[in-house]
């Protein structure tokens, strides 16, 4: 249970932190809108990822699922950072 909890909590949190901020880098004129989306959509997504990890049949599967989400979100942010860069 602890493995699933930490796997879901951490990967969901990374998703919540990186995806809306990456979109904000792509669309700097809509940062306020992205914060709004982060509150309304990405908080339930965080809980959704946690639920997905809890549904795993083993700790290994939970960490695998968590790693997938973490890599996707991290990669997306770094693509945004190195292609668009920070807003001036």
């Amino acid at each position, binding site marked *: 249970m602890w493995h699933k909890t930490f796997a879901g909590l951490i990967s969901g949190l990374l998703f919540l*932190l990186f995806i809306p901020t990456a979109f904000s880098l792509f669309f700097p004129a809509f940062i*306020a809108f992205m914060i709004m989306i982060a*509150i309304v959509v990405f908080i339930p997504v*965080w*809980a959704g990822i*946690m639920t997905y990890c809890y549904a795993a049949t083993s700790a290994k599967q939970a960490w695998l699922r968590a790693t997938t989400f973490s890599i996707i979100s991290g990669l997306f942010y770094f693509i945004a950072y190195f292609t668009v860069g920070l807003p001036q």
Partner: protein
Amino acid sequence: MNKQTLKQLTSAHSWLGLIISGALMIVFLCGSLSFFRSNIYSWEQYHQQDKSLPENILSPSDMTKIIIDRNYKIPIDHRVMLIFPTNESPQYQAFFSTEETDGSHKRYRLYFDPETGNELNKASQNYYLADFLYKLHIDLNIPAGTEIVGIVSVIFLVIIFSGILIHLRKLIKYFYQYRLTKAKDTYLDGHNLIGVTSLPYTFMYALTGVMFNLSILFQASFGYLVFQGDIDALSNTSGFVAPTNIEPSHEPMNWQALDKTIKHANQQLPGAKVYLAKIFGFGDENAQVELRLVDTSSITERLTLTYPLKNYQNVQSKHVTDNPVQGTYHILKQLHYGSFGGITLQFIYFFLGLGCCYLILSGNLIWLEKRALNRKQSQRSLALVSAMTLCLSIGTLISVALCFVATRFVPDTFARTEFLPYLFSAGLIFSFIHALAIKNSRKVMVQQAVFTAVLFATFPIYDTLIIILGGTTHGSLINLMFVNFVSLLVSAFCLAFAYQKRHIQIPTDKQKLEVTTEK
């Protein structure tokens, strides 16, 4: 969904529910009662000296002048918040912090007589129940409680999602199913019925709980990953700006203009009145006052007006929907408080809150009785887990009831800010010891629910007797009756819960043995 996934989700649902049940129970119970916070505040003072709002009171400007004359060393970048007197809370309240000679800050919360401007004695600050319940609701009255409640809210969201997935195929088909023959079925059906009915409500509360308590996550992510640590830029973008960059002129503040700004502001949004003023750069000529108008009958109407006191005609006006972040935050906040729907919606929210308390209690009981059937389970560890679970769920009801009783019966001179938290803990300890002594979790719940019902009925009976016997009473009778009615509703809820649990067939040792053998 395959059986294995369903099994994992059911396991997660019950374990997570058990772990956060204590915190969730406190948050829901105290939150439900906090809908009537101002009424409770008025109820607390009812039998004391005359606290009703006098006809002729000092204006906010006069009150500001009194604070200026006291020469507090308030830093220029700090603000003074002045809350105006109301019928429920008939005194001026001032909140600010001063800078001491060693550089430390000292917080002040002062109460003033609205008629004379004299600072009220400490006894008048003793009315702590309403604030204490609200504090328990937002941070459990413990260090780092805000963040803990935030994490609990995330887990609550997971419990909601897993509950939906477990029950998905039966969500509508078995909505009206309520089997009374077996205890397990009755618990489960009741749990599912209330869980499905209150789904939009619980989802909204879980979401807003995360938003209020873990907003630091958004500050950190957007502040550092988007704005490179420029928090001021983030504040500007999200609309959380206050006039803190005030250049001091070292000339006296035009305090007389405050009444004019309030008069002007009160005409800007129909249905809304200014109830507090935030003064930035307090005491200086360049001070600015921020006034906020909230139309509580609407979820989108909020106007923030910023006036320079030097020249109050140069007002800046911002509507909440001008900024998407402010708009979202405000709408979710209004949904959380439910004031836009008036007293009717607040009562619906209150009943749904009690429904959530039932969800927690019945969920715990399902888990505990299922564990009790398992013969392999160590009886000592089960007794300990049961006692802890019960003290944090049903014990919370006892603790809150004790706080109400103490507020009514303990002498007014008692420092309740210190007393109530101890009493709350004492209620939990009592519940824990009782649960350890009795061992049968259902019996414990029934007995403690009846005890809570008696406690919640004590002070309405006392108040009624005092009024009938012609005792001296001063405060608002409507608020007194209102809070006593709410207390009787909680009492009725506890009695109904106890009655239902008592009349469900308890499995005998023979039945337990049969279940174990079948396994």
